[in-house]
């Protein structure tokens, strides 16, 4: 079985051998970049979430203080 009869047997349009081969070549690199990007997003989301939580708890505390301030 060749690449042509393997990968492209399902395609009703010619996927182009060059286009298929290129994906195999760039897939590893772009896949790695994709993982790093998502992990980075998770990290930044985690910290921004923490920051938000801290900020909102500060606000709540301030709000509470103001509300209970007897003056």
């Amino acid at each position, binding site marked *: 079985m060749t690449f042509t009869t*393997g990968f492209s047997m399902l395609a009703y349009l010619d996927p182009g051998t060059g286009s298929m081969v290129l994906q195999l070549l760039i897939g590893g690199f772009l896949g790695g970049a994709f993982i790093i990007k998502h992990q980075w997003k998770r990290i930044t989301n985690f910290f921004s979430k923490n920051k938000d939580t801290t900020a909102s708890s500060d606000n709540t505390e301030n709000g509470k203080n103001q509300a209970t301030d007897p003056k």
Partner: protein
Amino acid sequence: MTLERIAGSFRDPSGFLYVRDGMLYRQINASYRESYDQMHESGLLESLWKQGLLISHAEADSALAQTDNAYRVLRPTRIPFISYPYEWCFSAYRDAALTTLSIQTEALRHGMTLKDASAYNIQFLDGKPIFIDTLSFEPYKQGHPWVAYRQFCQHFLAPLVLMSRKDIRLNALMQCHIDGIPLDMCSRLLGLQSKFSPRFMLHIHAHAKSQARHATNPNQDAHKSQNAKLSMVGLQGILDSLKGTIETLRWDPQGTEWGDYYNFTNYNDNSFAHKRKTLESYLDQVNPQTVWDLGANTGQFSRIASSRGIPTIAFDIDPAAVEKNYRHMRENGEKNLLPLLQDLTNPSSSIGWDHTERESLSERGPVDMAFALALIHHLAISNNVPLDRIAKFLARLCQNLVIEFVPKQDSQVQKLLVSREDIFPDYNQNGFEQAFSQYFSIAESIPITESHRTLYRMKTLEKNSKP
């Protein structure tokens, strides 16, 4: 019973579209059974419908099938006006590309993949791009690259990059290349500078090189790669990179301030309001189902029709005007307006196999009502088209016409005549009425207050209208 196969629906053996007694149907052939069932069972169909990414359909009676190998017959929602990529402005094209990528990402989540990525599979419905080919999905096979990668790059990436980086008018190349802009051509047109962009380097330049390298002996080259696999993460990485590339592409009209783009210098507030009111009264009288605004600029008058719920196409030759109109339409969530590029002196022709794959502008008509506002002087004077020929063409496009006659005294016509000989002795109101009376009956004509212009309402004579 009348039956007609849709001329552009023949490449995919999974099924085809046809019109029976005025209703649009899609036959699914037995060969597509597995894929169609998986679309249902995996939840992909429901998910795409929920997100408004795929045209909805109802399953119809199987007795309506046209051939013995039918598995199902569908009745898809009909798109009021089929538009083509060479008629889309930059942002519309970009939205269409991103929609295709979103659909592929969603398909992968459900264990399926797009087997084609033709720009002709995207249409605009209710002001948004939508995928219209329900038969474009197939089960994802682990390790397989995306079979539609080549087509996506040729149909979406290449035109968008060229429009953004070289010249906004280059989407016209889609008219001469039915399967998208060849990547070697795109690579050469982009030139050296674009090779410093890693994304352009991969998806355009290296892609074109790879196509050329493997074109001579695909079997042998392919054999060497038979054991290579592309992981799901690799595939996601490629899609993410394509998305990132397209998202960073921009185009804004240069050398013109948008705010001043269309100043109605020959209209004061009164005449402008009168023109608007007259147009409204003409719409009231005809009550059209569809409107084409020919030479719509940024759609100011098109919106008089579309805001009444009438599906309206706003055509203009100027990419900046269409772009501005489209952005306005998207920002305001307008549902009945579609701004498109159209050069009326060289309108979209019928192209593709047997001249029938993509319809010409007139084949997509006739429309119930056309507007030709502040247009006639551009056609008659700038382009030297005789008045009777303009009338003949417009009679093919519409059943009813609202046309503004702009006489020579008007400052806009004066501007056109300032640098050339006046070879238009018949360009006057009398000559205009005589020429148009050959193809239309003039129902009303109202001079616009405080201007030299007259707004006509005409009805196409029976002998001229398309059956």
